[in-house]
């Protein structure tokens, strides 16, 4: 038993740190460190910096231009990126669509799409959820009807994260409305968002920000060659894809950075004339969540090692998602508590390009409540924590 990094892992971590120190632009870092919202340009700029280094798609197989890292190295990379304040690499193209294309896509599709994903030229969106099909994805209603060389797509997707910047979207659509089970008769299809009949409508979140969208399809013509894999087999590709969300699902890097930021805030804020961090009750709350995170960090690494060793991931990713989201949400909550009255002024667009508002309190205070509200989504998206518990229970208890 040895909980420290191996020599190779330490060296790798140092390499990542050096790279981040050199390559991460200050303006982007500042947005992260102040809980701001990244704009399209920030995401694209950071993606191309990473792509140049070959680190935008490090988990991809080497023959497709990846680095073939194992999950442990990726976890080190992910954590260092969070701690440094780098934006996340959006997963939709890189870690959701690409593994499916690599596994079941045609050679033409691989050739056509993988380079754009890797370079970041093509911004991909995900089109799974629908208004009546969130946790219960199998009840989706969007349709694609074959018409010669094309499919005609109709329907509505929702919760499309950053879809307002999307060039392409991969969608689950119903191709056989008469199939017996709701999971069958679904296909996986790639749609150019510039096609006539595609409309993106913003959904404003309760923190006032535009992060997700509805995407409407009205008689959209999609070339038949954009079907991925076999018609009516989309459900199994979607399941494969969702499994790739596992690495980093515990959000250890995110939470470590939030913990550090919470401590900085609590050292500045005062309670009864003394730094809040010295208040016995608040200090105890910080200690509790810090210990939970400490345990989560080790649990996460244990699971990664098991996975690298080939163990069936089983219910592990669900367990990491449950506890990881709880830890992160608690940290955002404590940051709001630490902010006191200055969490209340509502300045949703502060720091966005073109907005020159000054924060009423500090930027950390001002963003604490909107961020708390926004991150309630962590326990909802990607399969709510209730769904995750049901998955584990099914596997472990049989119910």
């Amino acid at each position, binding site marked *: 038993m040895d909980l420290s990094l191996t020599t190779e892992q330490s060296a790798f971590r140092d390499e990542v740190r050096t790279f981040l120190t050199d390559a991460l632009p200050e303006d982007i870092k500042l947005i992260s460190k102040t809980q701001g919202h990244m704009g399209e340009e920030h995401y694209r700029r950071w993606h191309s910096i990473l792509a140049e280094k070959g680190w935008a798609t490090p988990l991809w197989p080497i023959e497709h231009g990846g680095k073939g890292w194992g999950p442990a190295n990726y976890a080190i990379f992910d954590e260092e990126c969070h701690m440094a304040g780098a934006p996340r690499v959006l997963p939709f193209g890189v870690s959701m669509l690409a593994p499916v294309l690599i596994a079941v896509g045609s050679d033409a599709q691989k050739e056509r799409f993988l380079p754009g994903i890797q370079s970041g030229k093509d911004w991909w969106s995900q089109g799974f959820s629908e208004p009546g099909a969130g*946790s219960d994805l199998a009840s989706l209603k969007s349709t694609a009807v074959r018409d010669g060389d094309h499919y005609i797509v109709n329907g509505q997707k929702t919760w499309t994260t950053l879809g307002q910047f999307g060039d392409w979207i991969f969608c689950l659509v119903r191709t056989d409305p008469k199939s017996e089970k709701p999971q069958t008769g679904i296909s996986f299809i790639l749609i150019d968002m510039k096609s006539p009949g595609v409309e993106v409508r913003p959904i404003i979140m309760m923190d006032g920000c535009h992060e997700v969208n509805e995407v409407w399809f009205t008689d959209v013509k999609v070339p038949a060659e954009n079907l991925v894999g076999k018609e009516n087999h989309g459900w199994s590709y979607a399941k494969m894809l969702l499994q790739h969300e596992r690495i980093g699902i515990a959000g250890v890097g995110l939470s470590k950075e939030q913990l550090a930021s919470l401590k900085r805030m609590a050292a500045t804020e005062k309670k009864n004339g003394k730094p809040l961090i010295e208040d016995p009750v608040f200090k105890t709350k910080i200690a509790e969540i810090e210990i939970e995170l400490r345990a989560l960090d080790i649990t996460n690494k244990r699971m990664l090692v098991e996975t690298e060793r080939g163990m069936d991931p089983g219910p592990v990713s669900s367990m990491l998602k449950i506890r990881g989201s709880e830890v992160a949400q608690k940290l955002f909550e404590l940051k709001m508590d630490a902010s006191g009255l200055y969490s209340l002024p*509502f300045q949703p667009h502060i720091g966005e390009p073109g907005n020159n508002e000054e924060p009423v309190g500090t930027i950390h205070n001002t963003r604490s409540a909107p961020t708390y509200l926004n991150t309630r989504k962590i326990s909802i998206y990607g399969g709510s924590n209730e769904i995750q518990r049901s998955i584990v229970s099914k596997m472990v208890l049989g119910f």
Partner: protein
Amino acid sequence: MNFDFSEEQNMLVQSLERSLAKSYDFEAFREQLASKITHVPETWNMLAELGVMAMPLPESAGGFDGNHVDIMAVCTELGRKLITEPYVSSVVLAAYIFEATGGAPADEHLPKIAMGEQKYAVGFYEPGDRHNTLASATTATQTADTWKLSGHKAVVLGADTADFLIISAGGDSVFLLPANAEGVSLNQYQLLDGRGAADVVLNGAEAVLLGTAGGSAAIIEEAADRAAAALTADTLGAFDEIIEMTKEYLRTRTQFGRPIGSFQVLSHRMVDLLVDVEQAKSIAMEAAVEARNKDVTIRMKAVSAAKAKIGAISRKFGQESVQMHGGIGVTDEYALGAYVKRLLVNEMLFGDADYHLTRYANL
């Protein structure tokens, strides 16, 4: 023992409900918010005409000598309808300070509060001193015939649209000045839930002393307690709406072919919220009944118990109701989020749960 509103209070609630139902719906509220309007004169005047401003005031000021249960009745309705008017600032905080300090300013201003002719905002808290009601960095300097105030008051509820400000200095004196006085600069903004506030920076602004110099610490604490009690009632109204919305959603939203409320983990959590609402009502009642108690310990215990407990329940309510709704719960266009934000603001103003729990534990 009697846990009901009086007949008068029930009538008041009913007419409030009717009037607010007419002028307010959620779409109108969203539009108001988007236009950054925190105060709608028609609504304000309607409240004045209904008498809910005069009600808690002394008869001598044209009031009806009401009590804090009246305030509870009114504030519950304001919370239920997400009303952003600075009612608590004028009618609870400022009115009480005028009453308690008396003299010519009281004679002049109380009738204006009763009629809704002027709006008032009261600033106690200061940057860096969090929930300390007796924050004391703001100074008052006496000159030949007046006082000059300097300092910074944080997140003063209603100060963005107030005509007059009441400001504490040194933590134990209170002063009155027009909001547009020289030496006053206001940084005005909306709070999370659409109510208005401002940071008030004073730079030698001329002001009138209310009551005696150094003699108002107890008055400041009672004013804050009365406001805290009022906000717990405001939260009750929001709780009711959240409960109704969530029950409805659980009954009607289907997943996997059945209403999601039929999933035991959701229905049982809903039950815990229902129990919490009953607990919240009980403790808010006690705060309303005791908010004006002459026995300071009884008052503080009741108010702190209510503010701490309802604060904790609010946090749970916000989290649980959003989680039970799923995605739609975090969007701006669905009313739930507006209520969750209302809860947060009520939770933090006039002492958060941590502040009041600590105060209670030390009483």
